[in-house]
């Protein structure tokens, strides 16, 4: 009886408190709108930014600090030879359309992703999987063709989430997942709404409704935040405004790590960049700190190789390509370009690229390299540069986690074709031993830094601006995601 009274009283108290806070919905703005809503068939990071962990879940998942934690798989056993993974799935999980999620759905999802004709943007993640087997409704056995140390990591990607055969047909417009939020509405060109999933199998979401609003223009972004039209701006595009938000008590500024290695991508097959001395000259002509200060207003950590500085296996190789214009000139002269040369510099829209491009153009001019700057929209950039490989230099941030493996792909847009590196990458993929993996990663980082494949600029730091009362946002961005499942209002 006493207990009942206490419970009622506290429930009342909570209701009063709840009435004061009142807010159970949130509007989160981001710059890019997803082209469609199927994370398993496109490279566009914006899809994951809306859906990852909110609507779709994988067997494993990323936590904010980058560690891998259980997702739909509650536990797993790895055989001694490292070839068989047995996953125990969470019980009582159902998709948003009411169908149950079981081992057959997992088998369907993974087989679909790794199929010959799969449209998955990261098929390499599933390369080592030989067979997926549904042992019983809640047990999945994955057999590998060779040991793979990063399988659990790979399965956490947005490209490896579990989808259902019943709802796959309309996934691009009406995604049906297992997450704590379900898809509600998409007003194209403006926003996407998610609603709380009342039947969620795990810890339910604290918010009733999340609206993702798309604001691409930096000036409009500033206005929207200042006018409090949006509660959170994830990936705020104008770093120059950050001090203003920091000084304003209405807002909090979260600057966490990202996986975005921002690089001066170089077309390694296009003369004169096929000459390693020219690439070395490029590297020495670049003053990274000036780019971080000028383009990012101080946000970002200089990097000397294609690896995230907050990763334990990171090697600081910035000294190997230290800013030294005299050395750059000497290298150019050695390579037979004493009088310099002219090349193209194609820039996608983000300010790190547009502003960074102008700074790099000025720095290259100092050593005699002239650049013709072309500003491209993302679609043009993907077509001309990424797919068409029609460029000399470009600037872009590679936001996928642990993506040093792209250097082992000779058809990738920087066209770096090196047998030695490819062998190292093959060895890495088969290696499960942590210490040996570290040693390999060390060698791989040194190799691409020593070959000056690209100009390594800085690790992108993306500020998130949020109203002071918002709690539970991810601090770091180990993958492209805005995990809203733990977000709530303080006050």
């Amino acid at each position: 009886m006493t207990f009942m009274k206490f419970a009622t009283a506290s429930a009342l108290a909570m209701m009063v408190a709840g009435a004061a806070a009142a807010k159970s919905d949130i509007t989160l703005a981001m710059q890019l709108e997803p082209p469609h809503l199927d994370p398993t068939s496109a490279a566009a990071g914006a899809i994951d930014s809306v859906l990852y962990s909110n609507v779709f879940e994988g067997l494993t998942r990323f936590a904010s600090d980058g560690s891998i934690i259980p997702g739909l798989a509650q536990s797993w056993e790895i055989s001694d030879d490292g070839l068989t993974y047995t996953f125990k799935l969470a019980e009582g999980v159902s998709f948003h359309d009411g169908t149950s999620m079981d081992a057959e759905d997992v088998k369907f999802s993974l087989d679909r992703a790794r199929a010959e004709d799969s449209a998955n943007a990261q098929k390499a993640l599933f390369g080592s999987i030989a067979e997926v087997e549904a042992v019983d409704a809640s047990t999945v056995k994955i057999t590998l063709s060779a040991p793979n140390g990063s399988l659990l990591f790979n399965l956490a990607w947005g490209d490896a989430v579990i989808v259902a055969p019943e709802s796959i047909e309309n996934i691009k417009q009406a995604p049906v997942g297992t997450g704590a939020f379900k898809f509600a509405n998409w007003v194209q060109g403006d926003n996407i709404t998610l609603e709380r999933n009342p039947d969620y199998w795990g810890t339910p979401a604290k918010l009733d409704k999340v609206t993702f609003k798309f604001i691409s223009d930096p000036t409009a972004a500033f206005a929207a935040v200042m006018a409090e039209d949006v509660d959170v701006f994830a990936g705020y595009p104008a770093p120059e405004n950050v001090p203003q938000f920091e000084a304003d008590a209405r807002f909090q500024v979260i600057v966490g790590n990202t996986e975005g290695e921002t690089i001066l991508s170089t077309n390694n097959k296009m003369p004169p960049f096929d000459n390693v001395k020219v690439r070395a000259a490029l590297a020495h002509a670049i003053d990274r700190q000036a780019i971080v200060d000028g383009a990012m207003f101080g946000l970002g950590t200089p990097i000397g190789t294609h690896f995230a500085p907050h990763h334990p296996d990171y090697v600081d190789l910035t000294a190997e390509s230290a800013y030294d214009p005299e050395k750059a000139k000497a290298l150019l002269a050695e390579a037979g370009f004493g009088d310099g040369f002219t090349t193209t510099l194609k820039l996608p829209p983000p300010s790190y690229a547009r502003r960074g491009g102008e700074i790099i153009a000025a720095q290259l001019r100092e050593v005699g390299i002239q650049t013709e700057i072309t500003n491209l929209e993302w679609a043009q950039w993907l077509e001309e540069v990424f797919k068409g490989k029609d460029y000399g230099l470009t600037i872009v941030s590679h936001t996928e986690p642990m993506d040093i493996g792209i250097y082992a792909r000779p058809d990738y847009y920087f066209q770096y074709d090196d047998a030695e590196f490819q062998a190292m990458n093959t060895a890495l993929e088969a290696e499960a031993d942590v210490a040996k993996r570290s040693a390999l990663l060390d060698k791989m980082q040194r190799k691409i830094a020593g070959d000056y494949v690209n100009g390594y600029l800085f690790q992108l730091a993306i500020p998130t601006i949020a109203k002071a009362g918002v709690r539970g946002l991810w601090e770091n961005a180990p993958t492209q995601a805005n995990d809203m499942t733990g977000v709530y209002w303080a006050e």
Partner: protein
Amino acid sequence: MSRSLVIGAVLSAVFVLAALVSFVWTPYDVLGLDIPNKLKEPSAAHWLGTDHFGRDIFSMIMVGARTSIAVAIVAVGIGMLLGVPLGLAAAARTGTLLDEVIMRGNDLVFAFPSLLIAIMITAVFGASAVNAIIAIGIFNIPVFARLVRGAALSLWTRDYVLAARVSGKGAARISLEHILPNVTNLLIVQGTIQFSLGILAEAGLSYVGLGAQPPTPSWGRMLAESQTMFSFKPHLAVFPGLAILLTVLGLNLLGDGLRDALDPRLRRAKR
């Protein structure tokens, strides 16, 4: 001389002079960046402050004047070179198919908002100063063609033209020797106005990223780049904005003043 003519001439001269001087001298190099000195307020060292790359805004406005003026002059030139002969031809052959074709073609170009044509051209052929010039030039053609045709039509009825026809001169020769000299005043006035519109159009195109490409300084792009910083460094937007305002105002006053000064009827009325 009217007051607007003097003010207009002085303002226009200042910017033309700044553009000319910028070829040989600017206080600072506009291509060299000085990032440690970025976003400085106006001072003795940097009269109008520095931008987000530490470039001297005064120097950039000088070179930006060069960009604006070059684009506008060539664009107006294109409009005149093509529009004037078209207008003369249409007037000489008034009522014929040639006249119809020329004037309806002009109507077609005129029907599109001028900036829209410019955006279309730069979107198709790529963003550059040259394409901006072509785009602005194209929408100048009908302006001059119409102006010249209208004026020429009334001139063709004059007695001295009749006399020339009687003496056996062909239409082309009459247009060149008798019509063109008498529309020159109109062309100068309209050219000045179109010149100011060209500067506005160049600024507009650069503002949306379709004009001169970096690192060439341009007033429109200076404005665009200052947008997110305007709230805490207003000088970044104020000075290029003033440059555009004063130049366009000056050219318009100059155009008005010239019209008053060159129009014989108005001149007589004032006396």
